[in-house]
């Protein structure tokens, strides 16, 4: 019996970047190709400290399935990962640890701050809790919610993909980026 191949017709492919095309050639900008490759193979590094981490587990599991967006591989070494996903309350004492993890990641790196606590300290407006991780590391996308539903985390992830896909190849060498890092005391 033949395989029911009609089920495979719904495969979704990414669209090719804008290009000059003719017989046997295609010319486009390097930036677009690199962006396309990067955004569809982001390796996330989960930094989960509390209930948002539970939502992230659901996001990774079969029902919501983050790997549909090219993030099959969750790395647990910061040196190999592109995206730091901070999920949960970060206490002041843990601040230097998170910063160290960020510093260990290779450029280009992105940061997704998931949940009210990571974004702003949330309900923990107290002397022991960091009032938002953007006090110690630069953040690209904030996902609000306490905790956010997996859909919200996926939405934040898609926003990161958008940023990654559109990022200029020279951004990380630019003065503006260096200024941003310097404002955090990095490098």
């Amino acid at each position, binding site marked *: 019996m033949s395989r029911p191949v009609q089920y495979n017709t719904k495969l979704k492919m990414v669209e090719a970047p804008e290009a000059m095309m003719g017989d046997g050639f295609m010319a486009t900008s390097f930036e677009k190709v690199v962006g396309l490759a990067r955004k569809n193979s982001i390796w996330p590094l989960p930094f989960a400290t509390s209930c948002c981490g539970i939502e992230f587990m659901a996001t990774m599991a079969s029902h919501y399935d983050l790997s549909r967006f090219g993030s099959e591989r969750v790395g647990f070494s910061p040196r190999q990962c592109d995206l730091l996903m901070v999920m949960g309350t970060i206490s*002041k004492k843990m601040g230097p640890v998170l910063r160290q993890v960020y510093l260990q990641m290779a450029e280009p790196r992105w940061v997704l701050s998931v949940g009210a606590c990571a974004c702003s300290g949330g309900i923990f407006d107290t*002397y*022991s809790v960091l009032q938002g991780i953007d*006090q110690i590391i630069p953040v690209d996308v904030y996902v609000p919610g306490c905790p956010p539903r997996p859909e919200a985390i996926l939405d934040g992830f898609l926003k990161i993909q958008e940023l990654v896909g559109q990022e200029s190849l020279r951004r990380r060498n630019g003065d503006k980026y260096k200024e941003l890092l310097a404002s955090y005391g990095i490098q």
Partner: protein
Amino acid sequence: MPLNNDTIQQILTQKFGEVLSDWQEPYGMLTFTAPKEMNLKVLQFLYDEPSLNFRFLTDLQAVHYPDKKGQELAVVYHLHNLVDNVRIRFKVFTDITKPDVFSATALYQSANFMERETYDFFGVNFTGHPNLIRILNVDEMDYFPMRKEFPLEDQTRVDKDDEMFGR
């Protein structure tokens, strides 16, 4: 004869006389106060005296009473007699401008971390402690967060409008 609160009070009054004060029994737990210079003498007696035998320091912490002038900080010791299963509570009060209390680390090893925690949150200076540094809070913290004059909220935050948050 089982060890009860009356016997403990009797033995302690025999030894120390009227120095120990403020005898109470909230929820059946014997509680009393001593002058802060006496804290080690009382603890040593509670430890050594064979009929009392309080050999386990369950807990040690401080309380801040901003209205008690000259006696703002209370250091509270919770002791447990494991043989007779009796617990008592013992307090000393100190002036917040000179919060020096003798350290109980020589007598109870468990006092080490608990005194560091008490120092961390209330700034009680335990004289004779081998390593009196912060234990739970960040090292850079420059105040004692559990003292009542400091607000609970993080003061570094600028985006919270008092009107919106009802403070």
